[in-house]
């Protein structure tokens, strides 16, 4: 018996992707997951532009993580320029990143993932019966949006974060108000954890190793080493790491060396850093019965829900701090190479820029979480398939989509994977 399953337009994900599966006599002969987005060549089009254009342009890689691309690009450019930003500037970038994570997780959990579990085609069709849950989701999204707008000046593609610091700072009263709002939506985050903990997830274990930033000081956001349970790398060593983990495939794909497949995600963060979660997030984690480390990608949704509580707690801490007026530092362009590695909704994001002495970008490299996860996703599908073969095509498709959506892939970002040359 041979079967071909082609999902030409996978719905309810960020961006566009397709899955091509061929099964012959119970064996999987083809399993290809790929982005169908047109290539946008961001690494190519920033070349020749000055260092201060990188974050504005690369922000357009992805709407749902535009703040992430802005912060990663700024971090990399500042690293290349040898510029250190103030503690306050960094703290507010953390807040921007957390706010984006809150809205991204809420959007993904309720609008893209949940309908699969409740047997609806979309969150919209859930509205009559699950209105309170959807309203909770919308409140969380609004919270994240509100902070992004307050700090970044816009809902998406923020403008107020610049090289060296902030072009505009929020007012103290606005921060206090935000802190109060955060406290109000915390119950929605707690309810989200309960809701997702109650969903039945398949038993499954990925062969991939997990990686995230690990920072001794906090549940890592913008700083730390890139680490798994087994190994750890400084961000500047990332090319070495990638060399170790990937090799170029003759045609298009990247394959990861035997046993060296890895994933980045909320689950990877939880696996590495769960001891640094806020008290209430730890409590919620305990109640779910999930015991990190977990290699079951279906647990990623629950990990995101737990992160919602943590992000709210961490954001509330930041909102309590005093806002001081600060001048932006003087910037003198210089030649150099800089790397930015930060934790964004879907895992670790890498930006790297090389500047010449005038501050013109001569080289750029961007590696998004989904690009890193693509192989793990594809191989998980391959591994999971045999146990599903007896099911109807429709059911297989739903299961595959669930698995893919659990990773929360972003193919707007991953259209990039076609553009990165792994060495």
């Amino acid at each position, binding site marked *: 018996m041979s079967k071909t399953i082609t999902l030409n337009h996978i719905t*309810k994900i*960020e961006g566009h992707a397709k899955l091509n599966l061929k099964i012959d006599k119970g064996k999987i002969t083809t399993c290809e997951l790929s982005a169908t*987005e047109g*290539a946008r060549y961001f690494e190519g089009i920033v070349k*020749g532009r000055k260092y201060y254009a990188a974050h504005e342009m690369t922000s357009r890689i*992805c709407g749902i993580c535009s703040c992430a691309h802005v912060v990663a690009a700024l971090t990399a450019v500042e690293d290349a320029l040898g510029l250190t930003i103030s503690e306050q500037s960094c703290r507010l970038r953390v807040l921007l990143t957390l706010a984006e994570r809150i809205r991204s997780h809420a959007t993904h959990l309720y609008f893209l993932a949940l309908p699969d579990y409740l047997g609806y085609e979309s969150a919209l069709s859930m509205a009559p019966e699950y209105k309170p849950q959807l309203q909770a989701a*919308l409140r969380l999204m609004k919270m994240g949006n509100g902070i992004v707008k307050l700090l970044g000046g816009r809902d*998406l593609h923020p*403008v107020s974060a610049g090289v060296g610091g902030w072009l505009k700072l929020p007012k103290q009263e606005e921060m206090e108000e935000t802190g109060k709002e955060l406290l109000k939506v915390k119950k929605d985050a707690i309810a989200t954890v309960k809701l997702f903990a109650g969903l039945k997830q398949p038993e499954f274990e990925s062969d991939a190793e997990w990686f995230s930033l690990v920072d001794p000081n906090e549940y890592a956001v913008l700083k730390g080493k890139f680490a798994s349970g087994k190994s750890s790398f400084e961000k500047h060593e990332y090319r070495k790491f990638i060399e170790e983990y990937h090799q170029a495939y003759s045609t298009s794909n990247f394959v990861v060396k035997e046993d060296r497949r890895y994933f980045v995600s909320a689950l990877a963060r939880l696996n590495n850093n769960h001891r640094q979660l806020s008290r209430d997030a730890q409590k919620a984690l305990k109640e779910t019965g999930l015991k990190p480390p977990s290699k079951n990608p279906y647990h990623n949704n629950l990990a995101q829900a737990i992160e919602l509580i943590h992000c709210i707690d961490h954001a509330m801490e930041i909102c309590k701090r005093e806002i001081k007026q600060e001048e932006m530092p003087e910037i003198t362009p210089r030649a150099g190479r800089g790397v930015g590695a930060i934790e964004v909704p879907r895992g670790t994001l890498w930006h790297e820029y090389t500047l010449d002495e005038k*501050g013109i970008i001569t080289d750029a490299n961007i590696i998004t979480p989904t690009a890193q996860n693509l192989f793990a996703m594809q191989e998980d599908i391959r591994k999971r398939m045999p146990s599903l073969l007896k099911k109807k095509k429709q059911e297989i498709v739903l299961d595959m989509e669930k698995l893919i959506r659990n990773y929360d892939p972003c193919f707007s970002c991953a259209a990039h994977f076609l553009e990165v040359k792994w060495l």
Partner: protein
Amino acid sequence: MKTDKNKKLKVGVYGITGCSGCQLSIIFNEEEILDLLSLIDLKAFPFIKELNIDEEFDCIILEGLVANKGDLEILRKLRRNSKMLVSLGACACTGCVPAYRHFTLKENYEHLLYKKQEELQDVEPSPHDEHVKVDYYIPGCPPDKKEILRFIKGSVRGVLPRPHQNPVCIECRRNGNACLLDEGKPCLGPITTGGCNAVCINGGFECWGCRGPTKDMNLDLMIKMLRDRGFDDRFIQDRMRTFVGLKLPMLERVMQGPKSKVLQTRFDGEKKFYE
């Protein structure tokens, strides 16, 4: 009284190559989104819906630019299937940042096209109206989320909101912002269509022109003002082309043209910008 479902406006929301930010902007109308959906018959929205009914639409709202052959096919098909086609966002209306590729050296990105198949699929990045007729534009990167709401509500009533005409400066002044051009910064507000409430300037940042040039812009004057502030031609070109380069085909000609036509302007301040 409930309206007959079949009489509701049949709407489809789709995306081709883009960042999903425009589609998110629709959903990010957190307070109105659920009610809004009771006004229309949302036949398709693959970003958040599993079931997408591909048929005759009254209105297609489409994010993203044409960057490969697949995009072009989808654009043409949606155009055929819909009474009205709405280009949503800068990618759709102007090509946005991805179309900046037209103004960069081929050698900068060529090597990224290392997969043969990709090369064959590749289409010069372009906005919708280079390929099909567009009935309505909702510009901006990202578009203003309230503007999308106003459009949908308007089309349900059969009265489309009038497109904005005035430059960003008008909204900017109304908000009481200090003028960034006066501070020696490269703001493109004077030649850019408003409707965004000058959101970038409110946030301390110059307008990059994402909503596209106004119909009656004075490009000559804008260039002179930037030159007066010490910005060189390379900078001016790069900045103007980042979001809407394809909509400024006359840029090079105007920059090289005689400067005498230009009005008297003077700037005594200092350039204040990154070196």
